[in-house]
């Protein structure tokens, strides 16, 4: 949804009209349907949405690690630092993965190799991405990384099972940051962790991002995490960005009915309410998306107009986009 401004250069990460489909059993799953977003160095963009909304698929498309069988990037561009990643040959891409872009996965329990020491796993990433003539000692670098994420370097030669969940996630972060990536894709990095540990890890990630001026794409379903870490927010529903803006715009003035519903469904920490306000119904079947607005079957404001054709993006304020044709009517009702 980023509007291209010819006067300035392209943003650091610039995704345009990304379309990804999966084919299984003769059915086409429309996972990502024309997503555009942009991200500058040192900034964090939060990608919020429900299970199956296509958040992880976007991240995997940027890295080009979608499964070979069945998944297909059908269109769009992913520019990183002016280079279209989708057009690079695989050999080039391999140099970028883990070096310029790295990814933190949701489940620290399965992201580590159980039969290799954590230190070796960090050192391996460093070694793989050493430039010719670079004299960095991978082992030293690995120890340094451990210290940075708050694990004593003495634990270099311990195995993943000797670490707790939070510690493992720190190791995963250390691996992701070992090569000073320019772009960090964090896919639900704290979902598997307890709140007190989550607070530690979020702090750590924020610190490191500020220190190295890394751009970060944070995928989450937790509005609280977004509020704490992100600068910008993109709300995604059924493979489409439905609302996009700065954190303040989206949290203070949510305009899309889905975003409004999402906030309403979270139990309020400061107010007592007898009943929650869930969004009716279920997310649509991605093999059979409804015509027009994908949210229309669950939307309390939907009219016939919403079900006719694809909905355009409306800009309500500077940089605040909303994919809904009934913004004004909703704004009136919501007051």
């Amino acid at each position, binding site marked *: 949804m980023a509007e291209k401004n010819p006067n300035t250069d392209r943003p650091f990460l610039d995704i345009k009209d990304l379309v990804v489909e999966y084919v299984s059993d003769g059915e086409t799953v429309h996972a990502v349907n024309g997503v555009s977003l942009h991200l500058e160095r040192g900034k964090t963009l939060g990608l919020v949405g*429900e299970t199956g909304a296509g958040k992880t698929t976007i991240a995997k498309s940027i890295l080009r690690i979608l499964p070979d069988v069945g998944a297909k990037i059908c269109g769009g561009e992913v520019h990183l630092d002016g280079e279209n990643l989708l057009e690079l040959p695989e050999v080039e891409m391999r140099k970028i993965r883990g070096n310029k872009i790295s990814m933190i996965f949701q489940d620290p329990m399965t992201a580590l190799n159980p039969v290799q020491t954590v230190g070796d796993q960090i050192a391996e990433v460093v070694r793989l991405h050493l430039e010719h003539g670079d004299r960095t000692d991978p082992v030293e670098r690995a120890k340094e990384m451990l210290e940075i994420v708050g694990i004593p370097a003495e634990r270099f030669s311990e195995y993943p099972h000797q670490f*707790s969940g939070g510690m493992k996630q720190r190791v995963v972060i250390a691996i992701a940051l070992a090569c000073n990536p320019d772009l960090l894709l964090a896919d639900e990095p704290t979902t598997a962790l307890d709140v007190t*540990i989550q*607070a530690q890890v979020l702090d750590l990630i924020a610190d490191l991002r500020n220190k190295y001026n890394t751009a970060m794409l944070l995928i989450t379903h937790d509005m609280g995490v977004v*509020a*704490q870490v992100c600068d910008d927010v993109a709300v995604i529903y059924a493979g489409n960005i439905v609302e996009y803006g700065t954190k303040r715009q989206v949290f203070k003035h949510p305009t899309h009915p889905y975003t409004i*519903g999402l906030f309403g469904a979270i139990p309020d920490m400061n107010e007592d309410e007898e009943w929650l306000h*869930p969004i009716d119904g*279920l*997310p649509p079947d991605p093999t059979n998306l409804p015509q027009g607005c994908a949210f229309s079957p669950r939307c309390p404001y939907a009219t016939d107009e919403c079900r006719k054709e694809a909905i355009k993006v409306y800009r309500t304020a500077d940089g605040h986009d909303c994919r809904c044709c009934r913004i004004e009517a909703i704004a009136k009702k919501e007051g």
Partner: protein
Amino acid sequence: MEPVIRVENLKKYFATPGGALHAVDDVTFSIEAGKTLGVVGESGCGKSTLGRTIIHLHESTDGKIFLEGKDITKLKGRELRAAREKMQIIFQDPYSSIDPRKTISSTVMEPLKVSGRYNRREIAEKTAELMGLVGIDERLRLAYPHELDGGRRQRVGIARALALDPKFIVCDEPVSALDVSIQAQVLNLLKKLQQDKGLTYMFVTHDMSVVRHISDDICVMYLGQVVEKCPSKELFAMPLHPYTKALLSAIPSTDIDNPTKREILKGELTSPINPKPGCRFAARCPFATEACEQPQVQEEVSPGHFVRCCRIREVN
């Protein structure tokens, strides 16, 4: 009035190669009819084990469990089965808690069949009624679990738990595997069922906003022990135990104007295997002194507000 569930000094230790794992250690509480007790804590604090021990999925090591005033701790055989019918459980994982090879209706009707009290027609009628009660479409009767989304599966689990008209239900993280919008649907359903049927809940969760919404009283657990117990509102307004304070401040708030002042705890959970006699939180507690190495007693600070900390006067 007699509380529906009362536990006294309940203990559950598991034998491990390293020694006894104190999963639940000296827990005492009671829940009045129609009320909800929220049990919060981080993974490994023993909150799920507590629920399972009460409904006899685990055998308790020590202590007593009373159901409607009757000691059920050591029940066996037919008496245990009768007691179990009054206590049910709703599980966290809607994927693994339903037999994947059984149709929805056969899962819901199984408790009725097993009880042996109903004939075929009554079973069919009751099953249809239960499915209506939790909002599962009649057409899904012969569907298999994998055809359903998480929210609907969780409704199947709820219907199964309700089949025998229990008094008391342990809800073991029933919404943590669900998306926010679906989570709200299920929470509303649970609340409505409680009002309609006068159910008593023990609601185990790690999500503070959920527990605040649904509970009347809340227990905060840390490594097998209850460190603080009080009415829900009081806990959020005036937490007393250092762990509760840290836990509450760690929740990321959605209010971007007033970001919570966070106290980041150092370190992680210590091992629950052969714990030291003193306060279990002492290793991470910013206020810990030598006095904390003594066994801690639970103290009623104000009516209905229990804290297990020897330094609460200094801390607050």
